[in-house]
């Protein structure tokens, strides 16, 4: 089946089925229809197809508001990490329930003192008999309030440099030592959570990858995160976006040449990025993995999002700051530039890994973690 046919079939299926609004039930039907885990191996419940099909399906899905948001972290980050770095036992145990919507996953990397510099995190997991006991705090965790499982990065050795003393775990979010506290963000909503770990036990069977190799595992996860953001694999809807070109064309006075030219600028930037993403997708289908170039796409998307909300509010004038849609758009606009790696981190990645530029001299790669300056210090 070629891609156009695949896309047509997906369109037809979505037209028929996209109205289901129970998330878990919808995921089960999505999996039955073959649209959950499109690129994942068949052995673990996937379809064994390519990112091209996944992107084609995502492009169709954007015309709908699918109730899949709570699964996006699991599908976009945790699942792929377990696929790449988990044991067969873990793959068998975790992946199919994830694809069928039986388990919601969240990701537990960021901490208040460790933002861009994720590897400087302080939450610790200590040996406790056959297992581990975890104490500390995480932040910026979306869907944690619904989560059954979390992908947790914790410090297991403070006597080695920061990158070398981390280990990855799957943590049961129903453990009584786990407290989920909603984190209100600047939009006034609580899209994220803070998570507190108080003597949380994890069996060693739930360790993902080797002890002290957690950074290597996390790099895999973060790569998937950037790709999934830039590709818009998250299937949430784009309908009713109050700052879309179409919405602004309808809302604004396009007889004003200044307004018209600004909308042209928005069109140019949107098309440029959209065509770049489509090219990445076609290259992937042709066997060229985008790698760190996905960070360029993520950076451009973050900038476009900010530009677009700023433009829309400036053009709309006083209405912009009392209209709920526009107000939410401008309040939410910084999110993409801050989550999943800041713009500065993206530029470092593109510079270092795409262009092969010399790295910044680093002090933090050799110092034992316990002697390293981290977080906020005066």
């Amino acid at each position, binding site marked *: 089946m070629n891609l156009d046919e695949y896309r047509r079939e997906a369109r037809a299926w979505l037209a028929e089925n996209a109205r289901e609004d129970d998330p878990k039930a919808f995921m089960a039907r999505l999996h039955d229809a073959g649209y959950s885990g499109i690129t994942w191996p068949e052995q673990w419940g996937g379809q064994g197809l390519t990112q091209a099909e996944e992107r084609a399906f995502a492009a169709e899905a954007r015309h709908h508001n699918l109730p899949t948001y709570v699964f996006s972290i699991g599908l976009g980050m945790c699942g792929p990490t377990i696929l790449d770095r988990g044991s067969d036992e873990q793959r068998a145990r975790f992946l199919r329930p994830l694809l069928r919507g039986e388990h919601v996953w969240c990701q537990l990397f960021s901490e208040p003192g460790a933002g861009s510099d994720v590897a400087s995190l302080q939450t610790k997991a200590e040996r406790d008999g056959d297992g581990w006991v975890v104490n500390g705090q995480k932040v910026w965790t979306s869907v944690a309030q619904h989560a059954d499982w979390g992908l947790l990065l914790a410090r297991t050795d403070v006597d080695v440099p920061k990158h070398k003393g981390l280990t990855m775990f799957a943590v049961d979010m129903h453990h009584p030592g786990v407290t989920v506290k909603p984190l209100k963000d600047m939009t006034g909503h609580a899209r994220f959570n803070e998570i507190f770990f108080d003597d949380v036990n994890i069996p060693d069977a739930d360790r993902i990858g080797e002890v002290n190799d957690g950074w290597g595992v996390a790099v895999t996860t973060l790569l998937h995160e950037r790709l999934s953001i830039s590709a818009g694999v998250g299937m949430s809807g784009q309908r009713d976006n109050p700052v879309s070109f179409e919405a602004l064309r309808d809302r604004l006075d396009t007889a004003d040449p200044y307004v018209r030219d600004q909308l042209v600028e928005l069109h140019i930037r949107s098309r440029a990025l959209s065509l770049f993403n489509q090219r990445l997708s076609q290259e992937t289908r042709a066997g060229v993995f985008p790698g760190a170039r996905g960070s360029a796409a993520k950076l451009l998307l973050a900038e476009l999002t900010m530009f677009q909300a*700023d433009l829309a509010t400036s053009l709309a004038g*006083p209405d912009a700051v009392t209209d709920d849609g526009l107000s939410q758009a401008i309040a939410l606009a910084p999110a993409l530039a801050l989550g999943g790696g800041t713009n500065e981190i993206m530029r470092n990645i593109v510079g270092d890994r795409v262009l092969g530029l010399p790295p910044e001299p680093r*002090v933090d790669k050799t110092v034992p973690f316990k002697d390293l300056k981290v977080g906020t210090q005066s």
Partner: protein
Amino acid sequence: MKLVLSQEQQDLRAAVRSFLAAASPLAQVRRDMESPDGYSREVYARLSGELGLTGLIVPEEYGGAGAGHAELAVVLEETGAALLPGPFLATTFAAIALSRAGEKELLPGIADGSLVATYAADPGHVPNGMEAGLILLDSGDELRAVPAEEAAREPLEPLDLTRRQARVTAPPGRLVTDDPATLAAIRDLQAVALAAEQLGVIRAALEAIVAYAKVRVAFGRYIGSYQGVKHKLADMHGKLEQAESIVRYAAWAGDESPADLPEAAALAQAYVGRACFEVARDHLLLHGGIGFTWEHDAHLYYKRAKADEVLLGPPRRHRTRLAELLEL
């Protein structure tokens, strides 16, 4: 042309700054903005009474201090930097209008703080419309005064909680002025006043992120030592320097050079309004994730900057005005 502050103006700045630091620090701002009134009546009363700021530009004969727009700019820079919630700017807009129009009945109440007023250039978006006792309605051709109790008012849900808005439907009210030159000067002076507030927001936002860049560590170094951060901050500093220069110039024109005022006022909104949002935006982004939280103050500057940018209409209005004044 006078672009630097006199000793008296510096003293005024220091007095307002220290008052606000004590009476309305950011923690207080957050409490007040979420309170039923949306601001502290006590702070407002002290601002009028102890400091005499609502009457600052009101002529002495009507109970004010008879100061100039250069002094007013100094004060508004501080209230802007402090993100002071409430109707101080709205009342100032009204004070500008009534002073220019030589309206003597209402000015004493504004000067002594007993009358909270606002100015409605757009009845759909009236700053502090719910809080005001007096509404000045600018219909384009004329300015009329309406007691608030005679108007139908509906609160709006504003992006910037530190300055609430209302939709107002009012009866015609009493004529204040219909002189086109007076009306034009009022609007220009309001543009300058707003630019002064925006200058304060720029300064405070830049100071906040510079301070953070000196203490926050990433990858074993203070983030302010990275050129990726440092160079952005240097560019923001350039915007601050230019914004301050323009505000001083425009305020001077307001006091001393009526012929320069229209261009200066349009320039002030066109440059300072944009610079303010850009600096507030970059200050928020450079904070990283913490800047996205409700509990952090970054979003307060960001939202104030965006709300201020559109307070006098879509920003392109100021550019169009400039084009006309430059005879393009």
